[in-house]
């Protein structure tokens, strides 16, 4: 049974203490009459790096968007950092301030400078003093290697730079979990690397990461586990080595043959 498939013990033991930070059980979601997520069971430990892949329309973006409730699930249970996601607005705001998300289209605030983009949430959600928030923002802008762009507006930056600002903006909230929704899909090829480099570096710091991506190189280098989804179901989840060289299911094999063919 697919839903009974547990992460390999080896993966679990590679993480220290491995406190469970996300637990999704029997989760279903519909868009109107369309059953987009079917019986999702997923457990993520602190510090785990998970790559989710699958054909378009398989529900992988929807899945990670359920984790900070940008999408609402209708059945099942999602527990993030010991808080269950329900209609309770206060809980949702708490979860959201601890779960960062990076979008395919960056979604920076175009009317604010890069520095303001990054310091806004610490100031208005964490009630941090402005000076302190700006120091924090600069620290993370340095980490994504664009402190010199702090005074510019997002519209003046390249796609790769914007995506790095978006990562810095999320990091400024000091999140426990980072979600990446196809972070490199909207980028020109020469900019993909600069964003992936930042993500690899972030992974090395021990951040819990769930990444929807087709960058299989990134998955091989960084992921503890690769999840393959199709038609709203988790079909298979394995460490990257096994996933790429020894896929179990026909659909996984077909998918891999399609994306690795070129």
């Amino acid at each position, binding site marked *: 049974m697919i839903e009974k498939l547990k992460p390999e013990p080896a993966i679990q033991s590679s993480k220290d203490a491995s406190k469970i930070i996300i637990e999704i059980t029997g989760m279903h979601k519909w868009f109107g009459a369309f059953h987009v997520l079917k019986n999702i069971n997923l457990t993520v430990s602190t510090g785990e790096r998970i790559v989710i892949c699958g054909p378009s329309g398989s529900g992988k973006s929807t899945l990670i968007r359920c984790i*900070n409730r*940008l999408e609402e699930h209708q059945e099942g249970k999602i527990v993030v950092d010991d808080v269950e996601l329900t209609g309770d607005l206060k809980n949702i*705001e*708490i979860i*959201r*301030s*601890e*779960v*960062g*998300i990076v*979008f395919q*289209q960056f*979604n*920076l*605030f*175009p*009317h604010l400078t890069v520095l303001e983009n990054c310091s*806004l*949430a610490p100031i*208005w*959600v964490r009630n941090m003093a402005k000076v302190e928030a700006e120091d924090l923002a600069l620290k993370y802008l340095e980490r994504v290697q664009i402190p010199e762009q702090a005074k510019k*507006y*997002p*519209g*003046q930056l390249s796609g790769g730079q914007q995506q790095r600002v978006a990562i810095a*903006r*999320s990091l400024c*909230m000091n999140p426990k979990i980072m979600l990446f929704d196809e972070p490199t899909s909207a980028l020109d090829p020469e900019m993909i690397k600069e964003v992936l480099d930042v993500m690899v570096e972030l992974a090395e710091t021990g951040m819990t990461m769930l990444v929807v991506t087709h960058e299989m190189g990134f998955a091989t280098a960084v992921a503890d586990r690769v999840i393959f989804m199709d038609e709203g179901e988790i079909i298979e989840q394995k460490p990257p080595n096994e996933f790429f060289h020894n896929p179990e299911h026909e659909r996984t094999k077909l998918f891999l043959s399609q994306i690795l063919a070129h």
Partner: protein
Amino acid sequence: MAEATETYKVGQHPDLPPPRSEVGVIGWVKYNLMSTPFNVIMTLLAIWFLWSIIPPIFEWAVLDSIWTAESRKACWAKMEVPEGAACWAFIKDRIGLFIYGFYPADLRWRVNLSFVLMVLAIVSVLYENMPGRKFGLWYAVAFPFITGWLLVGGLGLTHVDTDQFGGIMLTFIIGITGISFSLPIGILLALGRRSKLPVIRVLCVLIIEFIRGVPLIALLFIASTMLNYFLPPGTAFDLLLRVLIMVTVFSSAYIAEVIRGGLQGIPNGQYEAADSLGLTYTKAHLLIILPQALKISIPGIVNTFIGLYKDTTLVLIIGMLDPLGIGRAALADAEWAGLAREVYIFVAVFFFICCFSMSRYSLWLEKRLSTEN
């Protein structure tokens, strides 16, 4: 261009200056006025047209015009050709009425002071770089109350009935009240119309659609006559106040629709990004959504404001005398009858200056808020 014909190694071609015909005055004239034979003809025609109308207008309005006279006849007697030039003496004679309406002459300093306070308030609101702007904004919030007290009186000042208000002062009162209250109300209506709560949404839709579906004149008539029937007997409810409410409500409905358009122009990703950072609905709207939506809506908002400002002349239908009403009343004076051109030109110029300023301010603001390259 000797330089352009030079050859450079592949990959080492420098940027060369453009040919002279592409830039500067010559380039501009060439592309804008003389680009085709048809364009040349149009340019010449336009020059001829301007040449034939501007000098006569200038002569009529400025060079030959009369600035001091006792009456229309005295005015015409001073001209080479009777009625051949503008008689601004008429406007000068009535300028007090045009500015203050029937406000008691010895109390007009209160109106003058209000004008000064108004300019200060407008500058504090409109210019972000003004020193001490934070204080200026608080002052702007207090301004309507200070002015209301100054103009109407009470609390130590002689009371003046609002039916003595008139002229430019009345236009400013209605225009500025309408503009400054309809923007926040319009924003609330627009947000309400997009609310997820059906009660609020339906209520806002009803208000907006009803107000937009009724002509302003009808609303003004309702204000001047029918409102009394709805209110408990004996309630004295100032006519000016009723007009202010109607004008504000009317323009709020239009502003709401303009801002709704702006809100629809904000990509969903902006809401998601704001939500995902843990911002509440109010903070997300104040910090992220509204600043962008209002910026997109500036042309539409200012368009509505200009419309509202000019529509203030409609109050003459219910017997209030704005500059146009004062002018029409002045024309009824036998001493001055027949000088309609001067009156209407004066009123038109007054409204044009106000509306054109608004229009230029909005362009300046759009430019300043632009964050593209």
